[in-house]
């Protein structure tokens, strides 16, 4: 059992966006709240049409989470088909990252959405995980001070 001195609180970041029909790389941004880092474990998506592509970028580091180095269509790469990335929990399609990713407080993440359905696509992206609350010093010191006492009493 390891202890990284964080209390974990279940938390979801929700991004709602209406993507216009045939819109290319419609940007929407998510900023992690400034009170705590966020440990990203699951992705969930609802959309009214699966004819939708997604790119995700991390501001600050410039990291592209979704990329390609090969494309045979000869057209601009607009991202991964949304249904390959995540779906709804009801349809057993919530995507587990398996190896979680820590999103620092205040950092901004950009989602670029490309529709090919021709109609307005109502999209909700949910990142599930945990807020990482640093354990108060007083709690840590209290726990450490209690341990010698209890051991000496035995």
């Amino acid at each position, binding site marked *: 059992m*390891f202890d990284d001195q964080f209390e*974990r609180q279940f938390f979801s970041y929700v991004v709602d966006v209406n993507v216009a029909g045939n819109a290319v790389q419609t940007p929407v941004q998510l900023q992690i709240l400034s009170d705590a880092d966020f440990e990203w474990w699951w992705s969930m998506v609802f959309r009214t049409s699966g004819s939708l592509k997604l790119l995700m970028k991390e501001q600050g580091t410039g990291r592209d989470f979704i*990329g390609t180095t*090969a494309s045979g269509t000869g057209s601009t*790469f607009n991202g*991964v088909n949304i249904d390959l*990335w995540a779906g709804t929990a009801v349809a057993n*399609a919530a995507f587990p990252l398996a*190896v979680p990713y820590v999103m620092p407080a205040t950092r901004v993440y950009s989602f670029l959405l490309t529709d090919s359905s021709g109609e307005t696509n109502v999209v909700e992206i949910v990142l599930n995980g945990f807020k990482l609350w640093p354990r108060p010093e007083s709690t840590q010191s209290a726990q450490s001070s209690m341990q010698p006492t209890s051991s000496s009493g035995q």
Partner: protein
Amino acid sequence: MPGTSPFTRRNVLKNPLARMLPIHGNQQMSYRLGETHPPSEGLGEYAPTWEVIEVGLAALGGAQARINLQRKFTLLAIAGQSTAAGFEGWFKAQFFDVNRQRRMSNRGSDLYLFGGSNRNFGTPASAPLGWFPLREPYVFDEPDSQILIDVRNLEETACVAQIMFYGVALRFNQIVGDTSQ
């Protein structure tokens, strides 16, 4: 980052019914990977990466594509989709680990086996897809690793096929604590 398993940490309440959550068994197994291979075991500096190929396929045609992988790409899941409106967007694909000269199957497998139900993403409001999580991660730890993908369209109509490789990777300029990496 040391430790990420929410179930094994002090001062975190455990719900004994948590294992009865109605999520798919494969997802549960995949989620367990995070426990058995937590970032504290060496993946702490890694970031999720979705490597995608998109190829236009002629009727009954084929194509090959290569993916240049980021450092230490660790493959965790595969999914695929096509726009073909025929028999469930049927296409086959074979994968190769170029640097190790390894095949990942003895012959092409139908991608709908990897894609779960309802592969045709051209259908509006179709049910979300599944994907195939690897029971154990596959690590491409050779320098400048590549995946070679050979895709064959089994439909008599042209289509655009997309295959997604989900994993974690180090950036080329990432400095990790373990100098052996």
